């Protein structure tokens, strides 16, 4: 006879204390329905450029199927280094300041785990990507959120940052261009934060995965600000810019001591990122910039279309300067974001993500990804317009 499995207490308290993502619930609902137009997808609608796929296939044919060095193949780190210098004027040393990771998601994880001690606070900008706060909690840290405001175009202000800081604050997590708001922060917007960051000796974890998808001016990396590179962990990757989400390939750049610390976690938890993916990424950086520009032009056109169409159907929406999300306010309908998103899905078969799942400041908004065909966007706008009309009398 076998001993019965003891279920009580077999899960860690840390994992029990975090909630599954609110996005999951909408996925479950939407995926059982037919004829749904989805504005809920957080990834490009382009397939990875063929030259990148071809390079990866070729690497496998030539037998590059073994582990690579822990931080990634050196050729790729060198390309990342010159890419960052070229595009964003943020040079990093390929030998000891860059790690190729399993998506930007792993980069977020190892950046937090290698810097945050139990009890230390990390300031998180919300609405924001759903994984920051849970990862901070899993590391034993305490996420402290700042809810950005529509009237500030969802940028974080000096005053908001100052108010969130305590003697326990270790780091601030920035994420611009932002998922879900599409907000960007220019050099002029970032400048005032520097004083507070220096005064409180904070680290900055800057998730710049959407950097290439900036439509009105070139992205300004936080690490480029004078004196900030030394206290910044720059997180980025290939998913959004090169339409490579499923490849799970990102990178993290930081001062050598932090990179060495992150590399310890990475080598034990991951060993290295997927080898064929790394060879694909190499090609992406060597010859994919034209593809990036082609995709960015297309996103920008769709961004323009969405913002103007929302205005026409009576939804107020700030102009998102980056990423591929519009984040219109639905407050005038009197519904909360959950009710709106659920109603819209059931009555009009349009999937959007309620703003409240992205944390403080997200309520009253919905995230609409415009990384989908113009045809679908046109139909979605028509359906959302009908839904609003029906519920606004």
């Amino acid at each position, binding site marked *: 006879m076998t001993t019965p499995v003891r279920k009580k207490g077999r899960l860690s308290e840390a994992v029990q204390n975090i909630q599954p993502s609110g996005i999951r619930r909408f996925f479950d609902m939407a*995926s059982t329905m037919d004829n749904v137009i989805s504005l809920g997808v957080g990834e490009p609608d382009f397939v990875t450029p063929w030259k990148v796929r071809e390079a990866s296939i070729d690497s496998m044919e030539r037998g590059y199927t073994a582990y690579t060095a822990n931080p990634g193949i050196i050729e790729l780190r060198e390309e990342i280094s010159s890419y960052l210098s070229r595009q964003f004027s943020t040079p990093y040393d390929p030998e000891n300041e860059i790690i190729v990771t399993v998506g930007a998601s792993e980069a977020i994880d190892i950046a937090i785990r290698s810097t945050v001690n139990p009890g230390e606070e990390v300031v998180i900008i919300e609405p924001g990507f759903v994984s920051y706060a849970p990862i901070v909690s899993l590391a034993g840290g305490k996420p402290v959120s700042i809810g950005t405001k529509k009237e500030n175009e969802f940028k974080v202000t000096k005053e908001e940052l100052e108010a969130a800081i305590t003697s326990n604050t270790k780091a601030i997590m920035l994420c611009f261009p932002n998922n879900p708001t599409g907000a960007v922060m220019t050099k002029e917007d970032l400048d005032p934060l520097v004083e507070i960051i220096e005064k409180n000796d904070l680290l900055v974890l800057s998730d710049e995965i959407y950097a290439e998808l900036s439509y009105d001016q070139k992205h300004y990396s936080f690490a480029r600000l004078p004196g900030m590179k030394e206290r910044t962990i720059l997180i980025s990757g290939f998913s959004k810019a090169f339409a490579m989400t499923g490849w799970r390939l990102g990178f993290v750049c930081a001062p050598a001591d932090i990179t060495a610390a992150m590399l310890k976690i990475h080598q034990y938890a991951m060993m290295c990122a997927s080898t064929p993916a790394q060879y694909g990424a190499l090609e992406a950086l060597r010859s994919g910039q034209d593809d990036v520009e082609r995709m960015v032009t297309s996103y920008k056109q769709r961004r323009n279309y969405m913002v103007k169409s929302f205005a026409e159907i009576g939804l107020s929406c700030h102009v998102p300067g980056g990423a591929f999300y519009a984040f219109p306010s639905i407050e005038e309908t009197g519904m909360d974001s959950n009710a709106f998103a659920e109603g819209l899905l059931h009555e009009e078969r349009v999937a959007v993500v309620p703003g409240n799942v992205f944390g403080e400041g997200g309520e009253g908004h919905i995230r609409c990804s415009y990384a989908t065909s113009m045809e679908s966007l046109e139909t979605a706008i028509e359906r959302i317009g009908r839904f609003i009309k029906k519920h606004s009398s």
Partner: protein
Amino acid sequence: MEEHELEILRLVEENGRLDIATIAKMVDRTEEEVQTVLNKLEKENIILSYAAVVDWSKVNEREGVTAMIDVKVTPQRGVGFDEVAERIYRFPEVEALYLVSGAYDLLVVIDGDTMSEIARFVSEKLSALDSVISTTTHFRLKTYKHDGIMFGDGEDDDKRIVVSP
């Protein structure tokens, strides 16, 4: 050409059915401005036509036959290849005509209903022209890609999950 004119041109090149109102929103211009640009591009014969790319192989009994014909010709004094080219491209069967470098001078693309129709065109019309020295006819067996569009099922179906972070 100005940047926004180029942008509009690229949009209609990719999708000739986009309506003016949609284009206007996409390029952040008024409908009147977009209409003016299109009128100008049409008038200047930069935009020649708004046509669909059709996969005729999927239309029963309408598949037809296409041939690419390499043509060697004697250039004429004073007009070079232009005169003989014009005599060829005026035939409605001629789908495309290019002057090319290499072993041949002209590349003629002919659409017809049957192979014999094309054979007749080559022997009775094309070869009968005084300046035509020789022809080599290649019949199309299958179209993989045309005008930048992949035929067959391509990659059009969306493989993404419906809602993701």
